[in-house]
């Protein structure tokens, strides 16, 4: 893929429905996709790697892809690597939250305050990774 101005970063979130950290992945990804790096990013529903066709499976080959996972099971990173290509970068919410001193993330459906802070931290880190994989470091 060329380094043309149209080059975009892919973001795949695990969206894990069983853990609040899964909700964090989803909301952080949406914030970057729709707000902070709008126009520079694209996404794909993760299950399309299995349920979709060849077009979906080329996603991580077509776009340098950053995966966002809620926990150490790393479903998005591992599924992306298995079905498409190795992600260019990956994030795990539990690890990032611990590194930023955010504890007590809860509320799968409606995140608590800690969860909201985790969304901000993950979105911030994710935006930095988007710049990095697009070769725009220092652009922020």
């Amino acid at each position, binding site marked *: 893929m060329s380094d043309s101005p149209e080059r975009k970063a892919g973001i795949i979130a695990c969206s894990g429905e069983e853990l609040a950290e899964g909700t964090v992945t989803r909301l952080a990804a949406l914030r970057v996709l729709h707000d902070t790096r709008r126009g520079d990013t694209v996404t794909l529903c*993760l299950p399309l790697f299995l349920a979709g066709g060849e077009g979906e499976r080329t996603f991580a080959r077509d776009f340098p892809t950053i995966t966002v996972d809620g926990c150490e*099971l790393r479903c998005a990173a591992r599924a992306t690597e298995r079905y498409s290509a190795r992600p260019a970068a990956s994030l795990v919410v539990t690890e990032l939250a611990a590194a930023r001193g955010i504890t007590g993330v809860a509320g799968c459906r409606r995140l608590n305050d800690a969860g909201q802070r985790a969304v901000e931290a993950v979105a911030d880190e994710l935006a930095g990774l988007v710049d990095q994989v697009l070769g725009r470091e220092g652009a922020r």
Partner: protein
Amino acid sequence: MKDGMRKVVIVPCSGIGKPFGTVAREAAYDLVEDLRPHATRLVALSKLVLGDAESRAIVAAHPVITIDGCKLNCAAKCVQESGGTIVREVAVLEVFRQHKDLKPEGIAELNPEGVRLARVLAEELLPEIDALTAGAAGEDDHV
């Protein structure tokens, strides 16, 4: 849970690009958190995509209701691939066709119509869930 067949597994799709995917997720939470917390449980679709053994075992052992946000039917396809028995495939779009006044908008946060559509969808599933879990009320809620 004492009787292994008395909990219904709910698998919503992980739609991230459309409000209908968010409705699927919200409806699943309506069921497992508010309406039938003892009779239902969620399984994260991404775990099935990855082939997580524990999640595959759960969907293989219990009746499953899938809720999909678009015609690609990811939840239904992935549950089938995982060896699960689907007792009901719900398409959010079909439910919306019956309730055109409830047009969902917003992905990170649904508008009130979307929240209501999710609740209507969830409530329409209650008779089926109750029939599948008859006699299970009040039992230990572990699958």
